């Protein structure tokens, strides 16, 4: 039997971006529908795990926007910093600020809440994605 599965390779290439897209959609909808940064992050983690099975740990980690530990740290940092603007304006920490961007045809609400949720997303993706990928890597050579 061939060592690698062509079906897995091909579909992983297709599914990875789709899953990430789904993850982002879940992240953005989270404030009003089921979902949010954590669940979105978990979907992204599954995508990374899929890629780790298909292409190996290093391949999956390379596909992350940053190496996993900086990604996770950056996510937490983003979440942490999203509360800071309020401090500068004299509000309590984590007082979220809202603004609406007029886009002509519609309005788009931007807020530090979204930043926070994105921070959660990256933290989960970086940490658990890295963890799953590393775990899958535990047996890469030994099993082959």
């Amino acid at each position, binding site marked *: *039997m*061939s060592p690698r*599965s*062509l*079906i897995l*390779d*091909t*579909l992983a290439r297709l599914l990875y971006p789709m899953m990430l897209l789904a993850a982002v959609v879940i992240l953005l909808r989270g404030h009003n529908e089921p979902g949010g940064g954590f669940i979105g992050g978990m979907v992204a983690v599954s995508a990374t795990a899929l890629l780790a099975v298909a292409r190996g740990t290093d391949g999956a980690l390379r596909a992350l926007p940053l190496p996993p530990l900086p990604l996770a740290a950056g996510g937490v940092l983003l979440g942490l910093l999203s509360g800071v603007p309020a401090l500068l304006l004299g509000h309590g920490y984590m007082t979220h600020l809202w603004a609406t961007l007029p886009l002509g045809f519609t309005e788009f609400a931007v807020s530090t809440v979204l930043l926070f949720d994105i921070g959660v997303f990256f933290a989960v993706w970086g940490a658990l994605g890295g963890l799953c990928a590393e775990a899958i890597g535990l047996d890469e050579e030994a099993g082959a």
Partner: protein
Amino acid sequence: MKLLTVFSLLLRFLLEVAKSGLATAWLILRPGVRPTPGLVRMRYAGLSDTGVALLGCMITLTPGTTVIDIDNQRRELLIHLLDDSDPAAVVANVRRSFETPLRRLFPAGDQA
């Protein structure tokens, strides 16, 4: 032209899925005789990697058949059959329903 092929492929695929789904259900519930599973090889030609991967998917999605391996060197699919009573018919069906349209959509050398 391609769009039409895609559309007909999709339709045929869904039909196959429904048809063999019922067949499998019957196979399970049919009293008395147990099906004999088996392995068959099926050569393929004129398909790109993506094409053969898609072919594999379709075969797998069709109840009763599962692709176990795609051998790129020997250009062969290894298929597991739930009911091994008429393998030739199964292979012929696959060639007719899936391989031909896919060859048109993903010819060899056209690496998608």
